[in-house]
């Protein structure tokens, strides 16, 4: 009978990414309810310290694949290794992050393991011994409660929604040899072009300052960049701004852009169309600054300022600079 709540941890350059701790803590919570163990598959190269970090967040067994073949991530190498382990050990639940890597790997695994995968979940819980996942559909206009009819029951978790809670797990490290057949590895990463700006990706940002149609043009974003610099935030944009050519496509937040879940989202000159909300409704705190008091965004904002953003934002930057020293 399938037993064990597993995660596929995510790391880059030997350092665990934050989602890994969110996954581990969630797995620990589910495992405690089921009376089962938490397992983690950790793949990469040069992972000496990473395994210990997972134990702090509740992982009992770390299946470690430390090999050059796992750096960088490729669908084929990771899917082969995880599927092999899952078939051997038969966990009942398998969680991944809904990051770009997680989305690619979880969906391929769902196919290989012929099982149900709930993608981009905002909640998971145990009911009658099964995992019930809650996930947004129709751009978050409604949510679906779903279950897998097969094992492992799979879910990918939306980043920065689930808490990372320290709770010691047994932390036993089990090194394994994936023994991959090179003929199975059909894709190759030829080049990694790092984003030169050095700014944090929107999907990982703790604070986002976003501008929409109200910015009036690309020059308007200078004041947002200033505020973002003071707050340590990343600057985002609505579809209107991107389609007008004021900001680049990777900056777009929304249904056809990025889904973000920062602690703070400051929406400037953004009306709050449903397609934009689809991208930022998981934000913990939403601030709206817009001179139109009827803008739909105010219905979703925790704090609203009905005012000309070009007057408020520079003042807000000044105030934050003083507050943050």
């Amino acid at each position: 009978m399938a037993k064990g709540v597993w995660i596929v941890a995510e790391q880059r350059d030997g350092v665990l990414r934050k989602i890994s701790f969110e996954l581990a803590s969630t797995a620990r919570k589910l495992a405690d309810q089921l009376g089962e163990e938490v397992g983690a598959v950790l793949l990469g190269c040069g992972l000496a310290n990473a395994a210990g970090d997972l134990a702090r967040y509740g992982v009992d067994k770390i299946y470690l694949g430390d090999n050059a073949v796992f750096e960088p991530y490729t669908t084929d190498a990771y899917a082969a290794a995880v599927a092999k382990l899952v078939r051997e050990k038969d966990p009942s639940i398998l969680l991944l992050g809904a990051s770009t890597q997680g989305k690619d790997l979880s969906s391929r695994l769902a196919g290989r393991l012929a099982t149900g995968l709930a993608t981009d979940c905002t909640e998971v819980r145990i009911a009658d011994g099964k995992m019930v996942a809650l996930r947004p559909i129709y751009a978050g206009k409604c949510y679906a409660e779903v279950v897998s009819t097969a094992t492992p029951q799979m879910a990918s978790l939306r980043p920065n929604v689930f808490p990372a809670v320290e709770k010691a797990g047994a932390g036993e490290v089990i090194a394994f040899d994936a023994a991959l057949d090179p003929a199975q590895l059909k894709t190759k990463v030829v080049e990694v072009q790092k984003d030169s700006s050095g700014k944090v990706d929107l999907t990982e940002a703790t604070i986002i300052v976003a501008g929409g149609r109200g910015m009036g043009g690309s020059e308007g974003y200078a004041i947002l960049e200033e505020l973002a610099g003071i707050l340590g935030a990343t600057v985002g944009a609505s579809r209107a701004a991107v389609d007008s050519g004021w900001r680049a496509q990777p900056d777009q937040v929304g249904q056809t852009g990025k889904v973000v879940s920062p602690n703070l989202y400051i929406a400037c000159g953004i009306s709050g169309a449903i397609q934009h909300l689809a991208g930022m409704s998981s934000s913990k705190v939403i601030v709206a600054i817009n001179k139109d008091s009827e803008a739909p965004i105010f219905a979703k904002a925790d704090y609203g300022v009905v005012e000309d953003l070009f007057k408020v934002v520079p003042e807000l930057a000044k105030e934050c600079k003083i507050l943050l020293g």
Partner: protein
Amino acid sequence: MNIIACVKQVPDTEAQIRVKADGSGIDETGIKWVMNAYDEYGVEEALRLKEKCGGEVTIVSLGPARAMESIRTALAMGADKGIHITDPALEGADPYVTASALAAAIKAVPYDIILCGQRAIDDDAGQVGSILAELLDIPQITIITKLEVEGACVRAIRPIEGAQLLIETSLPCLITAQKGLNEPRYASLPGIMKAKKKPVDVKDAAALGVALDKKLQVLRLVPPPARSAGKIIAGDEPAAKAAALAKLLREEAKVI
């Protein structure tokens, strides 16, 4: 080159989504149906490949009778033929069953490359492309913003957090399209007229031999989680409002 582009017909993004009282699904009355936006990028890229390398573009779609409209739209853009998989038994199919049906139809025809949208904007699942590639045992490059095919060599750009990857594989393979891959063309009037005569094979589940048991079951649909009501910051001057906001963010919300 034999090029396949998969399309799904979905509600227009402006559509009001009303959940049925029993939570079993959405009320479809009055919904405007369109080709999934991400699939449009797949169809456009397929057409560009055909223009560059020669060959044929086949559109494959799983959906009820109305989905034929989206197939005709793709044919009007310039695709050559279609396969419409339609069967009441496949209504409400989950990603695994959908991918199984597409795989069964695609296995029966020659193909070099398959283009899908990175996800459908109704269920937002983003799985069908990958599961399809797995069932066909071909490599995948998902969520790409640039594609280059030279002979059997395929290169694509895949944006990830903080970087862009240049990934290489070979035909046959599957890619899923991200916004920014291209600008889809509009169907011309002559294109629309020609599309009516282009051949579309209609297949049902039995003809394809698809197993119908779902791997993912929807228990019910619920409204989005409610946020507690917010407050509008009062103040005489922008500076006063800004100061009040900064203080609240620091002391009350504790986010800065």
